[in-house]
């Protein structure tokens, strides 16, 4: 396990290093001045410009500049936004909170619905319910997120009026942004309308969460179904049957724990898909998260923000994948053996 973990961590560090190299190079590839792209301070402010010019190692060669880039990155000095002239790093926390809240809820919903439905479909294999579940999940999987989001807005918000169109909460509730996660912020706030605000926030949340959960949900159903079917073929299940164990014991004691293995392995991948979709979802639902922040910064050519957005989203995906891999290897020793045997 230790050897495996070390290998994964070294791999992560190498990937992060390559990522930092890419982002560092972007400063030179973007149009304009590299110092400005890096720090958000333009040459029209000569005093501050001279200061960062020296601090970022622009009097020396490219290697020093990279060293300074990493040092500033680690210190949390990520430059100023070209548009707002506010420090980029300070903006990240609430955005990250909002993105993680949406992502986690969607992932949670996908697992809570996807796993039982997958098992159900497997048990009903080739039966009518199996076909219905699989058919619906395939159709849902084929609808692009941006389209699904618009459809849901039209249906639930405009036609039925069950939910608002966009945003985190009705802005008239003066909820102070602390963590960025709206439910936690309401909990922490001292608003006198906490309960009402909480329901209002939930009302804003459910449509984007369902939209976002759709893709991983349909994937999970399919993976789970296949995994259960695979396990049901195994000899130890036949043996269990021969021992006269009840169907439910076979399912919950023997099939499910083993069938979860490929599902856990897939979770990291599903998270990457989720992160891609979250960018689109956030833009459509005007969700104050990293994704919409990144997209807007691209429209505004706000290079320090683009870098920060890329770095955070990429690191988040890498870290979650590492975590899932480690969890997978720790939980299922046979995987470690496979890897060690390579």
């Amino acid at each position, binding site marked *: 396990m230790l050897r495996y973990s070390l290998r994964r961590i070294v791999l992560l560090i190498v990937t992060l290093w390559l990522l930092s190299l890419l982002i560092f190079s972007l400063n030179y590839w973007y149009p304009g001045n590299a110092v400005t792209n890096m720090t958000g301070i333009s040459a029209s402010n000569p005093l501050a410009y001279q200061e960062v010019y020296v601090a970022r190692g622009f009097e020396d060669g490219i290697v020093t500049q990279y060293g300074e880039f990493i040092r500033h990155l680690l210190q949390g000095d990520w430059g100023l936004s070209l*548009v*707002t*002239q506010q420090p980029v790093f300070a903006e990240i926390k609430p955005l990250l909170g909002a993105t*993680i*809240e949406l992502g*986690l809820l969607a992932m*949670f919903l996908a697992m809570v619905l996807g796993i039982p439905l997958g098992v159900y479909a497997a048990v009903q294999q080739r039966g009518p319910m199996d076909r219905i579940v699989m058919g619906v999940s395939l159709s849902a999987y084929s609808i692009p997120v941006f389209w699904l989001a618009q459809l849901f*807005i039209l249906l639930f*918000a*405009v036609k039925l*009026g069950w939910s*608002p*169109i*966009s*945003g985190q909460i*009705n*802005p*008239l*509730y*003066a909820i102070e*942004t602390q963590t960025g*996660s709206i*439910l*936690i912020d*309401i*909990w922490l706030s001292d608003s*006198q*309308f*906490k*309960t*009402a*605000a*909480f329901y*209002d926030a939930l009302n804003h949340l459910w449509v984007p969460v369902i939209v976002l959960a759709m893709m991983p949900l349909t994937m999970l159903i399919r993976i789970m179904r296949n995994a259960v079917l695979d396990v049901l073929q195994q000899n130890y299940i036949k043996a269990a049957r021969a021992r006269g164990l009840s169907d439910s014991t076979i399912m919950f004691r023997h099939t499910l724990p083993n069938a979860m293995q490929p599902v856990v392995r897939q979770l990291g991948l599903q998270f990457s898909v989720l992160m891609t979709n979250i960018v689109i979802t956030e833009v459509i639902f*005007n969700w*104050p998260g990293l994704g*919409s*922040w990144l997209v*807007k910064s691209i429209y505004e050519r706000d290079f320090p923000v683009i870098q920060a957005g890329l770095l955070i989203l990429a690191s988040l995906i890498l870290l979650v994948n590492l975590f899932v891999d480690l969890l997978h290897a720790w939980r299922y020793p046979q995987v470690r053996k496979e890897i060690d045997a390579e």
Partner: protein
Amino acid sequence: MFKQLMVASGTLLLAACGPVQTDSEVYQDGLVYCSEGNPEIFNPQLVTSGTTVDATSAQLYDRLLDYDAKQQQFVPALARGWQSFDDGRRYRFNLRKDVNFHHTDWFTPTRTFNADDVLFSFQRWLNEQHPYYPVNGGRYPFFRSSGLIRLIEHVEKIDDYTVDFHLAQSDSSFLANVATDFAVILSEEYGQQLIAAGNPEQIDRLPVGTGPFAFELFRKDFVIRYSAHKDYWREQPEIKTLVYVITPNANKRMLKLLTGECDVIPYPLVNELSQLDQDAQIEVGSSVSPNVSFWAFNTKQPPFDNVIVRRALAHAINRPAIIQTIYSGNARLATGMLPETSWAYSPVQQTYPYDPAKARELLAEAGFPNGFSMDIWAMPVQRAYNPNAQRMAELIQSDLAQVGVQANIVSYEWNTFRQRLVEGEHDSVLIGWVADNADPDNFFRPTLSCAAARSGNNRAQWCNPEFDRLLIEAIAESDLDQRKHLYQAIEDFVMQQAPLVPIANSLRFQAHRDDVEGVELPPYGGINFRYARRIKDAPL
């Protein structure tokens, strides 16, 4: 985190069992305005963008005087009254006492408004040596383009509540410029505190003013929150919380109005307005915005240097049809350069009627019995005064074909377009003008004077000394009736010379829920929420 959420929801469910708080209060006392974009900064002195003006001027700040568009006159605001001396070269303002500045988390005022604040607010952009002059960009586009920066020689404090403005020459547009949304009054005391704290940039980002609403917070791309100014010197605003939700997408803005997430929206889509009107819960308000769209001829280029050709072309186009097609009727046919909102406006037609036969006759008289070929430049962007210049150019193209003139439509990317216009490369162009203040001078000097021809803003490249003389005469006159006559003479002169054909004065729209009233959309300047209120009995 999920555990935390469970705990959170658990606590909330428990809380719900206690005395139930109604949330209707929140809705009743608040108003959501879905604005079309982020303000660049919270001080209109520094910009000319309408979005920023809408977000700041009337809400956060007050001016020395206001312009009452209904009565078409200036009314006292922070100045109780004013007089002019020395043949209009000195204006004295008597200031109001007991005007409070906003009391916020970042500033506690120790004194009320006085002459120092007026000096501070004007010196900031008048005096290049002023410590705040270079802060946050240090460009003051409105004051520069309106000439106010050169007109005001200096501002003098007579006593704590009296201020004198010394002007370089008599200029009757002075009061109009001081009443614009740009000439706001800042707090001198706040300015001094920020200098002492070494943080002067904050003055335009965490603003302090005397206006009906105080700034609370701004999250770029999402929300601006204002709360009612408790010690406002005029009548308290009725709404307690004013929220701007930034919604750049026009479709989404309209849908959010339909679902009730927005109470008021600007710039609803014109072609869907009729649909909006049918919905009983939505009301559409409009005002004639002080703008004019026109078709300007490059009078330096033959054959447009010939006034007969220009008149012929003016007769050749069917403007009522254009209004119907391009603006779906949401515009008025221009009767001259001045729109209806101007006090110098007169309903007399000072344009050429549609008359193709007459146009042919005039063309023949000018020596073009078989017509000629020309270019029409059409803006690549939408503007309030012209939502679709390309389509308008096509309509004009077919009208011109009727009289034998063959027109080609030309367009470039917007920045290039304007640069080339300044160079005078065009034959004719479809463009327009939006006035910044209520003074009629603002419709002529920046668009048709010789100075404007030199700077390139004169799209007709037209420089007529007689016209400039009329302008100077009108600006030097201080009697309103006299001035009105002079501007009518100017309109006649423009019509006679026809350097351009005024086409339309478009309306500016705003739509709101029917339980909201009192949202003001003055023809000059930004939206005003001071009188906005929710009708109490309305169902939520």
